[in-house]
């Protein structure tokens, strides 16, 4: 396996380093510190770089890990290996409690929140009697296997780096999976992910806990490495440093965490030992230089060192092509293939005093293409958001297949077989077309985080990717399947969104301005695809401004103006409707 080769080489290099004759023992200490920092940073890579949740508080979770083992081993005489699960559990539970609050924070409130509880916990550590207040706890026993006690830096070295390697493998496995795609989609906002059934708060909490457990592991190792624990390494400063490491290495890259840890730990060491020679014995000089370098780095390489390094390597990682012969079972669907699919009854949405959707009623039947037209601000996208559960209606009812939806969240609506695209394209630009489309099939897979980490999800995963590839082929983008979604033209990105929506195996497809950005011929191709879908039994509700496209394609048209339905009928009837001409089309339609 060529993909595993760099990992094996890395593991061998790490394994032989202590055997290099004449290597200064101090270097091993540095490597130990790098490994400890890399563990925490790896959690941050997932949390911040991939999931978009910036945390300044990771050092506090190291504290939970370290203090748990410190208390259990010194006060209760528990064996260090038994405290490992306890340390991980305590960090995990702390993460659940803090996470429930934290992941609900939006935008920049989240990093600020982490600063706040990071500082709060630091003060808590330094004030609690049973944690030894500011002095902390010392006399923690070393790790030992049989009679072999890991007393020196070069013996615990293996424990640390085995932990780093395992964490790296698990993290990479997790990222390359159904759950991983859901996590990677978080950074672009929750609406798109939720539209395909991702429980975003749960996914956020998952990465939050995962990152905390890695930090707890680092703290546990730290406590047995230092054989002592005091509040200082778990304070705000350390939390900031871990984030710095992740950003330096390249937040978003697992190996960036290791590289970043290497750079920062060595840099700090160099600064601490050499600055006093240059500037005399002034204290804290390394902090000053450290701060300045941080600012400089952000100005010169804001995306970090790892991606910069990778873009300079001659070879590119190969991508597997999915085996399209694998089939996902069709979604269990209600038998109704005729009659009313979607029924909207007096739906109303008010934002403050503004009525965005004013008691709008209409229906979409099976095997029908219905267009929703009207000027911007007429309430078309709001109507879409009401149907898909992104917004809750102020009043009115929405039925899918005769069953009232009752303000169900998007994750429930999609289960009914209603899938959608967005007016402002919501793809993850740094994921491939295939990976983006596979998010559409999220609900049709079942593997969870743990099975992904352990690679027990491969059969499930292969079926999901096969389905995604099939839908990409259907919309005619097979040539772009391995390109990053962000590199496609806007028109093509809209088509990718359609493929993603098709992965749901929907009975009703909601398309928000699918033709915008397409050239005339591409529009014709899109229209042909939509007709083919309709003839295959699907219904389509679309918002579109291109009147030529709409009049040609739609079976029925609903016209909205200022949130109110002003007309409904066949294209011919709409073109001739005096109200529509007056409010929307104008004289020359």
């Amino acid at each position, binding site marked *: 396996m060529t993909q595993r080769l760099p990992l094996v080489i890395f593991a061998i290099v790490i394994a032989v380093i202590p055997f290099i004759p004449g290597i200064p023992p101090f270097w091993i200490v540095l490597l130990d510190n790098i490994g400890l920092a890399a563990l925490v940073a790896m959690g941050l890579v997932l949390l911040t770089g991939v999931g978009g949740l910036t945390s300044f508080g990771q050092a506090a979770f190291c504290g939970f890990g370290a203090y748990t083992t410190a208390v259990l081993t010194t006060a209760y005489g528990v064996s260090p290996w038994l405290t490992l699960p306890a340390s991980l559990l305590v960090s995990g539970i702390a993460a659940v409690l803090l996470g429930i609050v934290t992941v609900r924070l939006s935008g920049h409130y989240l990093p600020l929140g982490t600063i706040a509880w990071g500082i709060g916990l630091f003060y808590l550590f330094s004030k609690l009697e049973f944690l030894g207040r500011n002095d902390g706890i010392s006399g923690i026993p070393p790790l030992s296997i049989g009679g072999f006690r890991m007393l020196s830096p070069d013996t615990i070295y293996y424990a640390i780096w085995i932990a780093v390697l395992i964490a790296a493998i698990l993290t990479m496995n997790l990222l390359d999976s159904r759950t991983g795609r859901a996590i990677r989609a978080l950074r672009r906002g929750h609406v798109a992910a939720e539209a395909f059934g991702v429980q975003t708060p749960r996914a956020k909490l998952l990465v939050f806990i995962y990152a905390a457990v890695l930090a707890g592991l680092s703290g546990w190792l730290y406590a047995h490495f230092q054989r002592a624990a005091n509040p200082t390494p778990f304070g705000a400063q350390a939390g900031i440093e871990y984030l710095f490491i992740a950003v330096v290495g390249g937040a978003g890259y697992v190996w960036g965490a290791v590289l970043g840890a290497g750079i920062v730990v060595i840099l700090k060491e160099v600064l601490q030992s050499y600055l006093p020679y240059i500037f005399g014995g002034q204290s804290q000089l390394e902090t000053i230089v450290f701060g300045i370098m941080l600012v400089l780095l952000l100005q010169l390489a804001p995306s970090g060192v790892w991606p910069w390094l990778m873009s300079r390597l001659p070879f590119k990682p190969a991508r597997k092509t999915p085996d399209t012969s694998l089939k996902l079972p069709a979604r269990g669907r209600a038998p109704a293939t005729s009659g009313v699919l979607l029924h909207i009854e007096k739906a109303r949405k008010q934002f403050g005093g*503004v009525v965005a959707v004013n008691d709008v009623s209409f229906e979409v039947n099976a095997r029908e293409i219905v267009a929703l037209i*009207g*000027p*911007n*601000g007429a309430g078309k996208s709001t109507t879409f958001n009401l149907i898909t559960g992104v917004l809750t209606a102020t009043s009115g009812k929405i039925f899918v297949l005769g069953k009232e939806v009752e303000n169900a969240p998007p994750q429930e609506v999609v289960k009914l077989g209603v899938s959608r695209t967005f007016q402002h394209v919501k793809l993850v630009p740094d994921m491939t077309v295939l990976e983006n489309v596979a998010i559409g099939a999220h609900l049709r897979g079942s593997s969870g985080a743990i099975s992904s980490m352990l690679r027990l999800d491969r059969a499930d995963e292969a079926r999901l990717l096969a389905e995604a590839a099939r839908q990409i082929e259907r919309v005619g983008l097979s040539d772009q399947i391995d390109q990053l979604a962000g*590199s496609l*033209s*806007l*028109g093509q990105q809209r088509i990718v969104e359609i493929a993603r929506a098709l992965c749901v195996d929907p009975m009703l497809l909601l398309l928000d301005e699918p033709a*915008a*950005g*397409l*050239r*005339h*011929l591409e529009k014709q191709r899109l229209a042909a695809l939509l007709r083919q879908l309709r003839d295959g039994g699907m219904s389509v509700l679309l918002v579109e*401004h291109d*009147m*030529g496209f709409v009049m040609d394609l739609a079976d029925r048209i609903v016209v909205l*103006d*200022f949130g109110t339905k002003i007309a409904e009928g066949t294209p011919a009837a709409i073109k001739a409707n005096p109200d529509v*001409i*007056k*409010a*929307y*089309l*104008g*004289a*020359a*339609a």
Partner: protein
Amino acid sequence: MSALLTVADVHISYGKVEAVRGVSLDVGDNEIVTIIGANGAGKTTLLNAIMGILPLKGRTTFAGIDMAQSDIEDRVASGLSLVPEHRELFGTMNVEDNLQLGAFRIAKATAATSLEKVYTLFPRLKERRKQLAGTLSGGEQQMLAMGRALMGAPKLLMLDEPSLGLAPIIVADIFRTVSELRTAGVSVLLVEQNAQAALQIADRAYVMELGEFVLSGTAKQIASNKRVAASYLGFQHEGESAI
């Protein structure tokens, strides 16, 4: 014809992708020039680069002065103005504040008369002067964006997709106003997907495809070009390859 704006052999790249390749155009005094083409052809990129929002390679001069060294704010001060695709209004400020900020680089007395002119051009804005810009309808926002740009008394107004997302009936209104600007001594460079409407009011036109100009000429010539008709105006010409 003295050229107000000249753009010579301009290239614009996003990273490694070249979005605009070797484009040249000019706009004279009292002239309406339009660039038509599909979304993604590079029209918006070109306008943004002329305004200084994006860096470009090539030569651009405005009112006889090389613009290589001037930034957005300098260009605004010299009489170049852009109404961008997303309008970029100050949503939480009211209509009049938006307009007055449009005259940020203009003397106070001139700004007062500009305000009257804009209100005459768009009476709707006067009615809604105390309303927050973010609460206006799409058409009113477009009017406000144009009004704000006109407050700076520009020599050349660049409009990026003014018809985007508006009702056809409002589009007609906006285009009528654009054609009136010429009589007020303002030149217009108009980027539009709605080729039909744009060609009706323009003097000259360029057709852009995949980052290059493939055709140029008077608006009449372009409108009667069969290839343009097939690709952009939506007429079907049987038996002919559209592209």
